[in-house]
């Protein structure tokens, strides 16, 4: 453990709550939903103990929660919320509004299958389906990463003036308990200064947000959002590096695990990365030249870094824990788009792996590498359960 911190056994959801405590938010509107609820429970407990000074608001729905987040954030308050699955889908209308209004909200989404049929299983379709809403999206592999990412996310959101969504998988991360290094308040205060917004709802300033625009101004607002989005990759790099300098745990938009000289690179997101690490170690021990590319920043997708990382790699397997009907895995689609026209692009296999929370063990990943690495990819989705 790094100095200046406490080691605690925490679930991913409770780790998020501690990250929220350390970020000193002002307003937290949350509506309960399985499997997010432990985040709300822990925040309630910390607030009752006086460890969180924020106004905790429990509105009548997720739509109302996100509405309250937007207006609170635009006053210059630091705002956090959390949801999952149906709750995120109900927020959809306001997700567009939040990014369009440039509200620096940070949200944790617990990835869960959307209905119908009803299910409560880890699957990333809920947040991936929000990829066009203008939110920065980070995917977390472990409780530790979720805590660290919440704090980094506030810095990114408040600098870029774009909301950030951190997603972690239901149960595999949200409820699994692991040792977590909880940094001190002074360390976090050093990393994350108070939110100071010169552009805010303030009667002293006299601004308004969200007024109807003519075509040219609407177009301009999107160009401005685009310009800010293009700064996000560097902001994520800076935040991950500075956090690493303080805690010993560095992060970036992508993470490379044993990809040196790899003949096969497995590309995936979220808790699946932990399983793939074990599989990669097993295969490396057997002399198989395999590595993992973890996508942590999904929006904006780090296209340039992906092209650089995968040029010259003979084969890549994308493991998608989601299914977009009619196309296939969302990460696979995104990778195909990112690598289009790249000289020396890998043979890119898209494998629908663990959709609906089906367990994927390390041994299964070894089988997939041996089954697909020599094959030519097909265009359509490949189900591999």
């Amino acid at each position: 453990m790094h100095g200046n911190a406490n080691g605690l056994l925490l679930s991913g959801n409770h780790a998020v709550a501690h990250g929220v405590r350390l970020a000193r938010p002002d307003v937290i509107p949350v509506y309960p939903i399985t499997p997010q609820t432990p985040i709300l429970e822990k925040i309630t407990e910390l607030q009752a103990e006086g460890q969180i000074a924020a106004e905790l608001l429990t509105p009548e729905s997720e739509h109302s929660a996100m509405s309250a987040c937007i207006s609170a954030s635009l006053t210059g308050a630091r705002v956090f919320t959390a949801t999952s699955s149906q709750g995120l889908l109900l927020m959809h209308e306001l997700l567009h509004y939040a990014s369009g209004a440039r509200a620096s909200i940070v949200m944790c989404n617990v990835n869960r299958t959307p209905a119908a049929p009803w299910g409560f299983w880890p699957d990333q379709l809920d947040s991936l389906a929000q990829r066009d809403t203008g939110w920065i999206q980070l995917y977390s592999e472990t409780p530790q990463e979720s805590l660290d990412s919440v704090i980094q996310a506030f810095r990114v959101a408040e600098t870029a003036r774009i909301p950030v969504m951190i997603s972690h998988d239901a149960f595999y991360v949200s409820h699994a308990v692991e040792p977590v290094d909880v940094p001190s308040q002074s360390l976090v205060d050093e990393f994350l200064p108070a939110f100071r917004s010169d552009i805010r709802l303030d009667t002293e300033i006299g601004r308004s947000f969200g007024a109807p625009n003519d075509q040219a101004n609407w177009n301009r607002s999107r160009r401005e959002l685009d310009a800010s989005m293009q700064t996000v990759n560097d902001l994520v790099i800076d935040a991950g590096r500075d956090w690493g300098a303080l805690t010993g745990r560095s992060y970036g938009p992508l993470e490379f695990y044993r990809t040196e000289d790899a003949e096969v690179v497995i590309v995936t997101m979220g808790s699946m990365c932990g399983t793939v690490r074990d599989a990669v170690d097993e295969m490396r021990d057997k002399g198989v030249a395999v590595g993992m590319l973890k996508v942590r920043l999904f929006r904006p997708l780090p296209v340039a870094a992906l092209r650089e990382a995968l040029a010259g790699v003979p084969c890549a397997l994308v493991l998608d824990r989601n299914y977009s009907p009619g196309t296939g895995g969302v990460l696979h689609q995104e990778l195909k788009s990112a690598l289009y026209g790249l000289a020396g692009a890998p043979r890119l296999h898209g494998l629908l792996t663990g959709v609906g929370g089906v367990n994927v063990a390390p041994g299964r990943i070894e089988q997939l590498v041996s089954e697909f690495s020599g094959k030519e990819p097909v265009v359509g989705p490949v189900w591999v359960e």
Partner: protein
Amino acid sequence: MTAHTAPAFKASDYKSDIKPVWCPGCGDYHVLLSVTRALAELGRRPEDVACISGIGCSSRIPAYVNCYGFHGVHGRSLPIGTGLKVARPDLTVLVAGGDGDGFSIGGNHFQHACRRNIDITYIVMDNRVYGMTKGQPSPTTEPDWDSALSPGGTGLSPFHPLVIALASGANFVARTFSGDPNRTTEVLVEAIKHPGFSFVQILSPCVTFRPDERGWKDVVHTAAVEETDDPARAARRIMTDDGFNIGILYRGNRAPYKLTGREATSDTDQLGEMFAI
């Protein structure tokens, strides 16, 4: 085919073979019993009944009733029930759920369903808590209910669903107690028979997150006044009662929503003619 004559049904005919996952002692078991008894008493064929719900512990009820069912999304049971009733007015449509589903996330739909006054019966199993997400206060929770998830209480005024139903245009308003299945069955029979939107609030204790509600059986009492068809009088009574007044509190004469368009049927002879080649 000869005209259909209603066969005699037993309450057990309306029970599905799925075992409820409610906690032992949950009030909803008795609501399920009362619903099945009411349907048997009315002699509705299971295939002529649909039970629609949203999300929450009580919203699991369609799975346990042997009729058509639809387990919808959170708070949207009434719009789903409305859509079904306009497409199939011949069906008996029961919409069921809890106080969270009906008065929080679905609160606006509750008001507009009352206002539309379509011929459906809305059953709310009110336990004054979000049970499925493990114990958060709901819109009907007392403001001083002190719990781990609402330390010191919410301080918020509770919703008055029966009064809101009256103000919004519901045509039948009643309150019952799950622990009195005989009375609840009688009220449900009347609610289903009455034209227009019928709203039945069933006080249904959550023994897990509100163990204090076990005491409800000692405080519920029959309304001391006769039912009325005057919504203002009913509303005044409800606003000033203790919340445990049981009975039919309003039976109105408002004209139910008039359906237009084609007539639906479940008569097999008529269907045969419609689809004859």
